[in-house]
């Protein structure tokens, strides 16, 4: 192997390899940085709350001045929205058709009670732990998702003025609530538990299966027409959404649409930057391949003679394959090192501006780097082997 390498390293051009090294490093770094930056900055725009995904819009009808017009959506209106090109999926909000009251207590002493209502959306729009988000008819347990703003109202309005203790999200999740469902003829007490909070929906959510069962049980004759729709859109910046909504006089949470737009642009920009990075990577791959081809060409006689004295093409290719794999691995390590350093620089700034954002992991960047490394190395290995085999 040492002798073969001594022969085959003849004509290796340091300058060409340096060119490849820098180009590949730049390409790899841009790709990884774009991915990492996107992942780090996205929470700033999306305020992801982990319960309801960001690409959903909540659609309702405008309430007229007097307030007695119908605000529910008919089947044909839902079908029309479903047919729009910007719609990916659509779900309806189902409201409870019976009376709900609820009291919360610590150590069995009820100290906070209120009338309230429930709503549900199809379960696949709720992005939470599915093992908790379900209802079993034989049990008394109801999982509930609350809007985060309700907690704010309680903590900073209600509790403040009545000298009640302030409650954190964690504490709320530990409290058992007594939920009383009252229909025309029946009443039932159940145990409710808050399993999550959301910024995205201003409603008290229960699982859809619970809603179906309870409406059937307590208000079997009520006519249920949805008043709000949840719509997943492919591209929140789509002009047609705004036009459609305006034309039909629907209402939409503008703020969320803006956040959606910002996230969308971040996505597009990151994709463009990654595309440029990939292009540079691809070009650097060609620099390396040209360089190796030139090397094989210059060393053709040596390669042929090695094959003639009994070396196999695999064995003769090995030094060049190891050379390229080594270079690719070095590039990967350098790129990850530089990425780590750059990230520590901008994360400091980001934390200074948005103290609340959570640290995202770097694993996806590592994995993507690994995949690029493997892909490029495998292509190198195959190309070199084929080139050398032609000398046989």
């Amino acid at each position, binding site marked *: 192997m040492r002798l073969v390498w001594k022969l085959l390293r*003849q004509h290796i051009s340091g300058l060409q390899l340096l060119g490849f090294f820098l180009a590949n490093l730049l390409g790899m770094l841009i790709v990884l940085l774009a991915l990492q930056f996107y992942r780090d900055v996205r929470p700033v725009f999306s305020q992801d709350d982990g319960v309801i995904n960001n690409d959903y819009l909540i659609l309702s009808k405008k309430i007229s001045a007097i307030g007695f017009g119908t605000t529910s959506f008919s089947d044909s209106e839902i079908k029309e929205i479903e047919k729009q090109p910007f719609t990916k999926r659509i779900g309806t909000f189902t409201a409870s058709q019976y009376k709900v009251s609820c009291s919360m207590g610590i150590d069995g002493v009820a100290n906070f009670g209120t009338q309230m209502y429930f709503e549900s959306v199809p379960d696949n729009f709720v992005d939470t732990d599915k093992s908790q988000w379900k209802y079993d008819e034989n049990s008394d347990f109801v999982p509930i998702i609350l809007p985060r703003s309700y907690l704010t109202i309680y903590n900073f309005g209600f509790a403040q003025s009545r000298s009640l203790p302030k409650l954190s999200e964690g504490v709320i999740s530990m409290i058992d609530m007594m939920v009383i469902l009252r229909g025309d003829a029946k009443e039932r007490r159940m145990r409710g538990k808050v399993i999550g909070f959301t910024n995205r929906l201003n409603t008290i959510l229960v699982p859809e299966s619970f809603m179906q069962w309870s409406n059937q049980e307590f208000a079997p004759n009520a006519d249920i027409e949805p008043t709000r729709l949840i719509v997943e859109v492919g591209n929140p910046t789509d002009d047609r959404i705004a036009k459609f909504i305006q034309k039909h006089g629907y209402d939409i949470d503008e703020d969320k649409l803006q956040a959606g737009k910002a996230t969308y642009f971040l996505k597009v920009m990151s994709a463009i930057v990654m595309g440029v990075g990939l292009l540079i990577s691809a070009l650097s791959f060609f620099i390396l391949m040209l360089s190796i081809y030139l090397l094989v060409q210059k060393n053709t006689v040596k390669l042929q003679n090695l094959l003639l004295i*009994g070396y196999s093409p695999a064995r003769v290719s090995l030094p060049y394959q190891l050379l390229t794999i080594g270079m690719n691995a070095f590039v990967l390590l350098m790129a990850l090192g530089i990425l780590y350093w750059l990230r520590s620089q901008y994360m400091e700034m980001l934390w200074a501006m948005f103290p609340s954002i959570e640290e995202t992991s770097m694993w996806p960047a590592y994995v993507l780097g690994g995949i690029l490394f493997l892909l490029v190395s495998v292509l190198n290995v195959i190309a070199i082997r084929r080139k050398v085999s032609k000398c046989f």
Partner: protein
Amino acid sequence: MNTIRLEHTFPEVFAKRSDLHSEVWQQDVTLERGKLYLVEASSGTGKSSLCSFIYGYRRDYQGMISFDGANIRNFKTKDWTNLRQRHLSLMWQELRLFPELTAIENVQIKNRLTGFKGKKQIRQWFEELGIADKMDTKVGIMSFGQQQRVALMRALVQPMDFLFVDEPVSHLDDTNARIMADIMMEEATRQGAGVVVTSIGKHVDLNYDKTLRL
């Protein structure tokens, strides 16, 4: 491998020649393991072509060449690699040494592939052939006669059923040619290999089993 058989074989460039009077081309010839052959030829009769056809790196011939009955046209890269490591050895007329490597490295590059001879044996050959002082000299600056001796040693550091030597002594004096022939025959006999020596004039004086005019 015990036999190499040529059936109506001739180089494609000879296809239009009608004056082919050869004991090899367009004949049925069988080379047997353990025998010693001399192929005599004048230049331009395809002596090196014969070696390259049998060694598998040129295929521009008509007719059939077979090893133990197997047509060598069907052999794959992996078969040839195996043959060249364990069954067939060739000392080229143009030697095909690596000028960047020293004399000993040129022998070792083959010997490391086969792991066939010890360092001691190789050193002994260098001494017998009178080039022990050139072991660490780059082959590129050695004389052709010295290079021929290096090439012979490289051809011998492998197991083989047949050894082809293409004009092995063209640049050697009679004494050195004799030493070289002795080393070659000693190794070939030890392995029971068939030996095919080609020559266009000056040839080693050996006890040939058969002489073929190309």
